[in-house]
């Protein structure tokens, strides 16, 4: 009886496992294989580490890596806005649930929608230029200037990301034992004092977690935004590593070099994730 139901249980897991294996685990292995070859998708020519060697001497890769670092500017900004939103929501005044949903709203929208909203707003005929013209200025070609383009993408990241992160931080705030606040209030600590000496120190774990997911996101998740808003331009000025991997794969006849970039990025993100897991274990122990 027991043995039989073990068979049933395993058979029930198997369909999901097979789909995940065939269309996620196997492709990951295949990507590693592709990264060692020169291929146009039909023939594979073994090249050993050539694609990797090429990545490390490619000046564009370094320029693009620098862009990834520039996009990290969005991290303190989005965390700051999220923190403000979370602390405000935590006051739990009338209607806070409504505000929570509004803040979260950009998270249910497609990257195609968010990207186009920003691309439109800053286009030559867009709302921002109309505003500049109305106030007597000259319209600006935002997407020709790399500095503007990067800031527009950062703005899109902050706008669309802060709501979800505010909810993560709010969950952290809610977990603080309320008696700590009451004790501090009895001792005469004011609202600002409590904010800096109780509230924020108590959610440093959640803040650390939010920081890490932002770093991971900056390296592996803003592909769509860049694709829709700037397509990586002007030049490679807003291209990130993941977008470069895509460009290399689909605009040259060597998918191997794109795959090598993607594999390197995965290793990097894997290491980050491990470091995060380790950091959290350490914190749990203290």
């Amino acid at each position: 009886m027991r043995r039989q139901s073990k068979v049933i249980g395993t058979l029930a897991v198997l369909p999901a496992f097979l789909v995940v294996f065939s269309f996620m685990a196997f492709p990951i292995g295949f990507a590693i294989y592709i990264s060692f070859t020169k291929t146009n998708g039909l023939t594979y020519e073994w090249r050993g580490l050539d694609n990797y060697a090429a990545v490390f001497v490619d000046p564009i890769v370094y320029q693009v890596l620098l862009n990834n670092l520039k996009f990290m500017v969005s991290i303190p900004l989005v965390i700051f806005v999220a923190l403000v939103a979370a602390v405000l929501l935590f006051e739990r005044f009338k209607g806070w649930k409504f505000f929570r949903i509004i803040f979260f709203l950009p998270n249910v929208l497609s990257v195609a929608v968010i990207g186009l909203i920003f691309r439109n707003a800053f286009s030559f005929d867009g709302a921002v230029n109309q505003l500049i013209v109305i106030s007597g200025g000259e319209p600006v070609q935002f997407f020709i200037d790399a500095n503007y383009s990067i800031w527009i993408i950062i703005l899109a990241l902050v706008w669309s990301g802060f709501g979800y992160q505010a909810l993560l931080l709010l969950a952290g705030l809610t977990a603080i034992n309320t008696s700590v606040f009451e004790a501090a209030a009895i001792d005469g600590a004011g609202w600002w004092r409590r904010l800096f000496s109780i509230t924020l120190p108590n959610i440093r774990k959640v803040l650390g977690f939010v920081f890490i997911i932002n770093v991971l996101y900056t390296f592996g998740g803003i592909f769509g935004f860049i694709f829709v808003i700037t397509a990586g331009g002007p030049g490679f000025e807003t291209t990130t590593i993941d977008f470069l991997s895509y460009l290399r794969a689909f605009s040259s006849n060597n998918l191997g070099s794109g795959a090598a970039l993607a594999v390197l990025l995965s290793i990097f993100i894997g290491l980050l994730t491990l470091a995060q897991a380790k950091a959290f274990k350490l914190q749990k122990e203290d």
Partner: protein
Amino acid sequence: MSEEISTRLNAKARTPIFLGMVLLALTIIYPLVFIILTALRPNVDYLRDPFGLPSVWTFDNFIELWQDYGVGRAFLNSLFVASTSVSIVLVLASLAGYALAKLPVFAPKFFTASFVSVMLFPGVVLIIPIYLMLARLGIVGNYAGLILVYVATALPFATFFLTLAFRAIPDELLEAARVDGAGFFQTVWLIVRPIGAPGIATLAVLQFLGAWNELIYAMILITDDRMKLLTPVLASIGKRFVTDQPLVSAGLFITALVPLLLLAFASKYIMRGLQVGISR
């Protein structure tokens, strides 16, 4: 006495907080209102006074997009692909989740570990091999390939999510069903499905949003114009008609409508899904 040591701010001090919230909320609401108003006016009217209310109200932008630029067809295509992939995910993840939560399974740790480890990889590593695999199988340009990709990328989280949700089902109920002679599928349908319904609904909403909003695979894997999904069509309309903001705004509105309706009517499920995401 207890009121005096309240940790909440007094009414006067709360006014700036309320204003802060309203201001933050406006940065989200205003762009959306602007898009809706822009979508409802002709381009000439928009260019004359972009920030004012429309002096001419019209549905022409929507009609034009829907009929002449393939948005109507793309909307239905997206609806089909998203609902099909969500249905498959729900069936497969329910079976796997129930088994992992409640049944003895060979090497359960192996299965859980496989589901968790594939989630660690960034999405971009999958694009090239999946494209080449589907090309080899001859299902590029075909919904089967795209749906398989959506199902596969959704399943690890979905299985994890439902395993947690189904753990809460009381063992006595399952035992009673077994004593009554209910088989595996009967138990899943008569007990797991109704009791796990809130979890399943949450998952359905989250996965539907994911599939509806996806852009990159929809763009790479579907090449035939008649089969294109909504997000790639919107992206290309946005690039083609930069000088016709009302038309693009109408496209934005159409694409955002379904997720916004889901948020309005199923926010309970979306927020509950987040809690699980957080505790992970």
